[in-house]
């Protein structure tokens, strides 16, 4: 990659930060150049972010219909999936899966809720089973 080819596409995802990439200067020697983003990378990254946003939206809809749980919404809002949340809490996946359902969530004790709150970085009140659909973070 030549230094003139270093992408400067001002990716919004970079939040005006810059990334260092290796590129060749006029003499062919490698130097570090700052890049403001690349549309190719941005496309791949946006897709991953959108996938989580979509899942969070779907979970919120299920919650509103009484088919989901606050836990499921928070899980996707924190960009986690079932295996990630299970690992972060140290619980079996089948248990977490059950807790994502309205019935399973309703049966959660304070100790388990505290464990989820810790893994999700939220307070116990966020996990209160008021089941009111909360607006998303983003």
């Amino acid at each position, binding site marked *: 990659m030549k230094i003139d080819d270093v992408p400067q596409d001002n990716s919004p995802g970079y939040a005006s930060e810059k990334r260092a990439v290796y590129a060749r200067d006029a003499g062919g020697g490698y130097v570090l150049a700052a890049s403001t983003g690349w549309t190719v990378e941005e496309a*791949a990254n946006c897709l991953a972010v959108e996938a989580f946003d979509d899942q969070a939206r779907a979970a919120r809809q299920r919650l509103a219909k009484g088919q989901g749980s606050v836990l499921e919404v928070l899980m996707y809002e924190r960009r986690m999936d079932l295996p*990630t949340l299970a690992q972060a809490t140290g619980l079996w996946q089948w248990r977490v899966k059950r807790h994502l359902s309205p019935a399973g969530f309703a049966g959660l004790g304070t100790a388990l809720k505290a464990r989820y709150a810790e893994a999700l970085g939220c307070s116990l009140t966020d996990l209160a089973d008021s089941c009111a659909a909360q607006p998303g973070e983003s």
Partner: protein
Amino acid sequence: MNPAPIQHRHAGHCETGVSSILLQAAGLALSEAMVLGLSGGLTFAHLPFVRINELPLTSYRMPPGRIYRGLARRIGVRWEQQRFRSPQVGMAALDAQLEQGRAVGLQASVYWLPYFPEAMRFHFNAHNLIVYGRDGDDYLVSDPVFEQPQRCPAEALQRARFVRGALAPKGLMYWPTAVPAVVDLHQVFRPAVRKTANMMLRAPIPFIGVKGIRLLASRMQRVATRQDDRYLRLYLGQIVRMQEEIGTGGGGFRFMYAAFLQECAKDMERSDIAEVAEQMTAAGDAWRRFAVACARQIRSRQPVDLRDPVTALDAVAALERQTFQGLLAVTRPAARRQALPIESQKTV
């Protein structure tokens, strides 16, 4: 060894950058590219049975931790490494080191570091950064993938260091305790690059090296017939993200490795190594063309067609094979190098 203050530098990748900065503070000037090359940190691996968000794992580098630990074996740097069961003990140990004026490398989760841009925050637990001081409740962070030093509140840093899950950091904290006075490239260059080249060309399993690239190409063709477009886009996106995102140096580390080869060629006055550096650059460019082909499919409104990305990937595989064979050729002992002209080796 007396702790010395660190100098923050912008780098292409977290672990190589952190190692380079810490070593410089300890008295060994080694560029980021040299850290990557000498530690043998470059590779390719496609592990379809390891899933991240239900997508197979593709990696362009050795597993986290192998870069700074690889330096220990190759050039004789000694590292002190500590992991902690208790977050409180781990944070107290960090404070104790900072009080002595020592900057330390830490492993942490990207997601819980608040100074990362929102769009970059994923649950990747093996990010590396340096903490060099404390100001009240904030830790002073030198994170080489950022241009400027950052600050991180204590609570967030503790969470990031002690997150559970895949590649859990367990509060890993490390710093060099002994560094060699000089690095003799004439001794260490050969084993370092041959290790990487052998892995890329001669790994006995199909998931690693050039075989791994070919495996990825064939898996892509297979997955195209079995999955819907939404999945295919995510699948391509995952490959590109591993190749291009913050912490890869771009071009899946190939440009950084080319910079390493160039530096060595200059240092040892070897034009043949410089030629391999050119080839490595070409391989990096081929990786970027592959990323462009993938991105086109991600963004297109037409049904996903994997033929272009697969063709681009085949070109990458051919170039990588040639490049690493060239690397083996230039590191053969001088007598054998004369006996076997490089042209004849390309057909091996």
